[in-house]
């Protein structure tokens, strides 16, 4: 009798916890932005799928005017509730301070200083890619804090270019500077920002999905609208992983230049 009562209490506690996690999941997904509207000459799609109820992936867009857009993608170490809390803090800090950053490298340096103490106390860190795109000049300026280099598919060319820039992950040391790089985009170019949950998806035999497979998948869908490119890539990742269960959070942002 007592044992049964104890089980019922446990069941109630489990379902209360499940409800709270479901609320956390819903709110975290609502904190991710919709695609920015009213920026001339770009089409964007984005998606984030946490491995569990909540996760440590983050992406955002800051539309300053109809020709200036910032894009950011980040991945907090771990993919649990702790990572999710830091993801929310990162978003709040960045949203409050992004307007002060002169360029993409500045944005990362500033964020590193602002988050360093909390990341040290919580023993977490994050990788981040930050870009500023001007549709008038088509200049894409970017900096990276140890994030997986986004892929650039040039219109009419085979394969993918890595957009790598030198910079350490955030939360390891103070006073870090970040290399700033620039590239001029052209009609028909496509950019793919992603988190490592995609490239580190494992197959049944333990093989990793990897950068080459991602590049081939994106290239194969290059003619499709951004939303369909994401669907295509995610379908390939799911087939590759076999059982369909994600091991890590997955996020993708696809931007096409028209």
């Amino acid at each position, binding site marked *: 009798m007592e044992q049964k009562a104890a089980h019922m209490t446990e069941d109630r506690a489990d379902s209360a916890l499940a409800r709270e996690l479901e609320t956390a999941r819903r709110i975290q997904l609502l904190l991710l932005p919709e695609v920015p509207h009213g920026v001339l000459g770009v089409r964007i799609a984005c998606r984030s799928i946490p491995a569990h109820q909540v996760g440590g992936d983050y992406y955002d867009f800051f539309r300053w005017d109809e020709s200036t857009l910032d894009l950011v993608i980040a*991945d*907090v*170490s*771990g*993919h*649990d509730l702790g990572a999710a809390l830091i993801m929310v803090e990162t978003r709040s800090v960045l949203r409050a301070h992004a307007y002060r950053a002169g360029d993409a490298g500045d944005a990362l340096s500033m964020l590193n200083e602002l988050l360093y103490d909390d990341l*040290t106390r919580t*023993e*977490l*860190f994050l*990788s981040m890619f930050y870009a500023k795109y001007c549709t008038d000049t088509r200049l894409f300026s970017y900096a990276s804090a*140890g994030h*997986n280099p986004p892929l650039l598919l040039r219109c009419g060319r085979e394969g993918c270019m890595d957009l790598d820039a*030198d*910079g*350490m*992950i955030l*939360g*390891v*040391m103070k006073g870090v500077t970040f290399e700033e790089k620039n590239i001029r985009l052209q009609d028909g170019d496509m950019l793919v920002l992603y988190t*490592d949950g995609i490239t*580190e998806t494992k197959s049944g035999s333990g093989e*990793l999905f990897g950068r080459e497979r991602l590049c081939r998948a994106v290239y194969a869908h290059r003619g499709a609208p951004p939303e369909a490119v994401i669907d295509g890539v995610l379908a390939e990742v799911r087939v590759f992983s076999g059982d369909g269960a994600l091991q*890590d959070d997955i996020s993708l942002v696809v931007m096409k230049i028209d």
Partner: protein
Amino acid sequence: MEIAVTENSGVTILTPMNERLDAHNSDTLKGAMKESFEAGAKNVLVDLSNVRFIDSSGLGALVSGFKNSVSHRGRLTLSGLQEQVRSMFELTRLHRVFEIYEGLDEALASFAEGDVHG
């Protein structure tokens, strides 16, 4: 996760025995490094030669060890990085923060000489 702990000429050597260092087991390594520094160890070497795969949680454990070494005025070095582990260090630029040696012998020799690489 099992971690072999040995001593060699004043160096505490921590050797994770698993092939993966990830969210499921990195806390054990984090705890072992912390305990070593708190117990007064000044020279700690993490031998990663068994580790074929590391994720961000595994790197997080090593970063935490690095910060512990700094706050305890100790020294943390790594050795035996396999291909995937090395590429993760290069991507995150953590190879600039840690002293990394090819093998255990080179790492131990560096402690004996007392050099500190950046």
